[in-house]
């Protein structure tokens, strides 16, 4: 790979992005526009998250990258390799070891700490986009806290389909002010955002926006008074590999047998569980 710059981007660009991050932290949930740089990775393939990671990473950091919960997916491996090749930092699949976790569409199962930063890749940062296509208009709507359209979408969903079918990327209200897209994480992960110990950074490279959820900020999933917020339900199901319950599970359909099995979506969590359980069993046997 060419170039000698640490973390790919030139220092000036990284400093500019860090300034945008500061602004984002200062105004939780507010989308800060930034001069998104071109990376050697396609726009829409995680360039927002990568720019955040590249701007904040230092030589002593330990990086974990996941895609839909998985450390091994092609895209996650690709991004990890990319950052590693320009920083030479240590990488891990253990979320407790990591200081920076970049993720697409999941928040790890293990609670995050104050000394960790969670970087989420965001395809569409604008929670109002579904009801208003124009950026100029949505900016004004945020300024005036005009969120009726989002509530209307939820209400419409409810009366058309009998329940709220809106899946992942379910909007949250941050600190009673801005409504924010949590990125396409499942609803199951929404509660991890509110009052968290760690800093959440959200990066949308194609849409040129950065926003943040600082530690201990509230992020309330929108819900009507008489219809509580509901997440995906895995009651009575457990991981077929590590036996974990109350975690987000991937459905695996065996076309040959017609069986439906479940597996931890968080592969790092599952792996660690199997290792420590195995070790515990071995100790017991000894």
């Amino acid at each position, binding site marked *: 790979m060419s170039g000698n710059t640490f973390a790919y981007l030139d220092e000036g660009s990284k400093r500019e992005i860090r300034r945008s991050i500061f602004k984002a932290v200062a105004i939780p949930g507010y989308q800060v526009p930034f001069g998104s740089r071109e990376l050697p990775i396609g726009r829409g393939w995680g360039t927002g998250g990568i720019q955040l990671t590249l701007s904040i990473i230092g030589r002593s950091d330990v990086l974990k990258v996941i895609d839909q919960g998985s450390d091994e997916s092609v895209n996650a491996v690709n991004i990890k390799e990319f950052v590693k090749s320009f920083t030479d930092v240590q990488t891990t699949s253990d979320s407790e070891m990591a200081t920076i976790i970049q993720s697409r569409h999941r928040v790890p199962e293990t609670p995050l700490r104050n000394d960790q930063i969670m970087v989420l890749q965001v395809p569409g940062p604008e929670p109002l986009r579904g009801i208003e296509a124009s950026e100029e208009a949505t900016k004004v709507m945020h300024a*005036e806290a*005009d969120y009726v359209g989002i509530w209307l979408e939820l*209400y419409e969903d409810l009366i058309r389909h009998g329940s709220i079918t809106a899946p992942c990327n379910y909007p949250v209200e941050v600190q009673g002010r801005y409504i924010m897209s949590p990125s396409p994480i499942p609803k199951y992960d929404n509660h991890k955002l509110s009052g968290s110990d760690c800093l959440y950074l959200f990066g949308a490279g194609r849409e040129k926006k950065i926003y943040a959820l600082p530690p201990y900020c509230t992020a309330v999933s929108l819900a009507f*008074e008489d219809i509580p917020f509901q997440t995906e339900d895995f009651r009575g199901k457990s991981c077929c590999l590590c036996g974990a319950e109350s975690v987000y599970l991937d459905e695996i359909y065996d076309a040959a047998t017609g069986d439906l099995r479940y597996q931890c979506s968080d592969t790092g969590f599952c792996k660690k569980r199997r290792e420590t359980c195995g070790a515990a069993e071995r100790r017991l046997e000894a």
Partner: protein
Amino acid sequence: MTFFETPSLRIERLTIRYGAGCPACMGGGILEKNRCAACDTVWSLKGVSLEVYPGEILGIVGESGSGKSTLLQSLYFERPISAGSAYIHEYRGGEADIFTADRQQQREIRNIHMAMVYQNPLMGLRMRFSSLGNIAEKLLAAGNRNTAFITERASELLGIMEVPVARMKESPRNFSGGMQQRVQIAKALANDPSILLLDEITTGLDMSVQARVLDLIRKIKYQNPNVSMLLVSHDLSVIRMLADRTIVMFDGQIVESGMTDQVLEDPQHHFTQQLVQSML
């Protein structure tokens, strides 16, 4: 009606002008139509003042371009004004000029204290959403977050507007023009506004459909004795049927006003005379 009551809406010297104006037209000089011959400034509204009382329907008539729709649009904050003020009794006791309120407050006024019904239902409805959803939008804007209440209230309003229950979950896109208009009215009524702005709401509808919509407006008047309506129409029979009082607009100014019967039976201004004659 007594005139000792407090008006629900008071407009003072409302002016919309396109152009810089010059000493001649600013000083009240003669305009050609509504355009100043000296500086080309167009005066869409020139010093319009009026009051509307609770329970009253004020008819506004005039030819196209006379400023009647512009008046409603400016009141609904859809057209910036050049000068003047307006006060709504329900909003801060009628003490605060609504044109100087900030945008957030103006949105609150639009959602809660005032409502507009447009000639074209596309303007007042979101066609991507169901009829229930359209009414819900207003209720949500007023801060309601209880879906049972919202659905009950929206169904009730659509029921009053004679929209069949079976079609309430449908988008008004599929409805006839008359039915779309009734959904729009139901939406306008959602938060019991004290002022309803009705802009040519029966124009373009069949006669029988028109009659039904007008009947419903009457019904609203009797069921909501405190609501005031500004009824813009170029159709004098609509005005005769509904309006208590009527103002006549000509080239951006009010040229005549009075009880509807009086204005239509004994018009004073030459334009009103023309208008009434053309009806015959």
